[in-house]
């Protein structure tokens, strides 16, 4: 029983690493894995892929504070290094943000809502390609963006991102069924 628990931990951690690596990296990959599984496993011989980077001890501020708010209102605050996308950051921190196309601007599953319009305005305007995907996002709002296109930079320190609540209206073309 114990052995199988360990193999599951290993599989889980390795899956996390594989998951993070499969996202198209827009920056240098910083393996700052925060969960306890990998910390436990760093001492174990079968986990050979986590490279300990000394950035965790560095005093220079090279990251921004980001808070994700899930559909139940639960908040999670994380540190995101400059240049990393919110999607990558979410996956590294076990935040449930889908990323079906892994950052290729071919889906809308990493849709997030920027909770403060001031922060929304600090972001660069979305390109046509992003707008095309946002068209299809569920629960689209005035301050919606794709998580894979929001890149950490000093100006957005403290940004709060809400994960959209699933709506019942599944129609892509915005067709609203007649009330009955």
């Amino acid at each position: 029983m114990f052995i199988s628990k360990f193999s599951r931990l290993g599989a889980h951690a390795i899956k996390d690493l594989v998951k993070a690596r499969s996202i198209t990296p827009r920056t240098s990959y910083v393996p700052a894995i925060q969960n306890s599984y990998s910390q436990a496993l760093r001492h174990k011989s079968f986990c050979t892929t986590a490279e300990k980077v000394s950035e965790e001890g560095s005093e220079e501020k090279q990251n921004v504070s980001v808070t994700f708010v899930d559909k139940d209102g639960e908040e999670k605050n994380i540190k995101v290094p400059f240049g990393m996308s919110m999607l990558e950051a979410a996956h590294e921190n076990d935040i449930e943000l889908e990323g079906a196309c892994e950052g290729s601007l071919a889906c809308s599953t990493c849709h997030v809502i920027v909770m403060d319009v001031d922060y929304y305005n600090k972001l660069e305007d979305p390109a046509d390609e992003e707008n095309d995907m946002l068209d299809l996002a569920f629960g689209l709002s005035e301050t919606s963006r794709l998580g894979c296109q929001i890149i950490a930079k000093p100006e957005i320190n403290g940004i709060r991102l809400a994960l959209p609540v699933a709506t019942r209206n599944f129609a892509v073309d915005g067709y609203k069924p007649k009330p009955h």
Partner: protein
Amino acid sequence: MAIFGKLRWISRSFTSLPANPLRICVVGSGPAGFYTAEKILKAHKGVEVDIVDRLPTPFGLVRSGVAPDHPETKIVINQFSRVSQNDRCSFIGNVSVGSSVSLPELRQMYNALLAYGAESDRALGIPGEELGGVYAAREFVWWYNGHPDCRNLAPDLTSTDTAVILGQGNVALDAARILLRPTVELARTDITSHALDALEESSIRKVYLVGRRGPVQAACTAKELREVLGIKDVSIHVKQADLVTTPADEVEMKNNRIRRRVYELISKAASSGPSPPLPGQRELHFVFFRKPDRFLESDDRSGHVAGVHLEETTLEGDDLGKRIAVGTGIFDDISCGLVLKSIGYKSVAIDSLPFDHYKGIVPNVGGRVLSDSTGDLPQYETGLYVCGWLKRGPTGIIATNLYCAEETVASISEDIGKGVLTSNSSKPGREGLLQLLDSRNIRVVQFDDWEKIDAEEKELGNLKNKPREKLATWEELLQVASE
């Protein structure tokens, strides 16, 4: 030999499960099936999920529907593969529910979740629909995407210069794009070689995309439209008169960002107008406010289509609901040798499954299947659920299934909580299914067998500078799977 492998496979899945795991069989391995399986596995650590598909290859329309020149849309396969690799999940391919095993038999072995999509088509119901050269867009798409059921479709692309596509949704645009794109560009994609060969010989130079309603109602979305308007060496033709909007159109666009952006793209294309046609240039025509009345038969080639007889329409309806196209009695024709009907898919009913033939879905509430009973209170079929197109109808994108799966899994979780679904040992699950299939000489394809197919396709593709060369016949697929 095969049985030993299967027994080993069964036993490895039980190392970390409780003694009597709840067993769920997901029928259909497309996005609906995989998103549901993923969510069930995550929400319930004591559940075992088997994903069954009638094809030897998983992933449903991600493999057989998404166009070859849209590889980024297929990246989600990575996520789905990880789900299959979960200890508590197994892919079981080459098993058709409804023929290899009946639904009642399956339900004796598992709680079942049907996510087998919509493998048939809406019919127009007009004369000439049976003529040669008239296909459902689904068949054409399956053909160029290497679905083994359409390997021998052999559409004739060399006896005509014109194709008419009925419908203006994203599938219609995909078909138009595959017919018009320079084949050197297609040669680098995972399009099947039998289709590429046919397209290289194709004499089709004009494609008409015909919609019953106007540009404001066109069912396509901005990205796909932008793409088709930008194909190299293709001139775009839109009648200025079709762009006139009514107040009702304005309301529709005001409320709907997608409609507005689609309309803007179409009107921009119309105003820039086609330059005088260059030699060898291909044409894409957007035809609005026309509904097909009948197909015209060729005089030279009996039994083959030679044109579409269209009736002009006008829109009726109020501002709030969907407006419908009504015929005006004015007709015209488009000559063509190929017609693709892209007017919607339709699900297939199977024995012992409640089915709403009008809507083409399984009657359900939140994914719980409703019984065929005629009583006052709705009765649910115990241990039977639906997700995806079979549940909602054939609309939406891959991501739509995320929310659909969430809803169905919430119903399942509620039922588990209420004790409606039992994990008693009387449901034999995978062993029962495999034994039954074995007794019927059905060779199942496991996920690592699919990986052999995957590796072979990539290797063959490598030789031709393509991401993969799909194995497009049942024989090849099953042979490689059993190596």
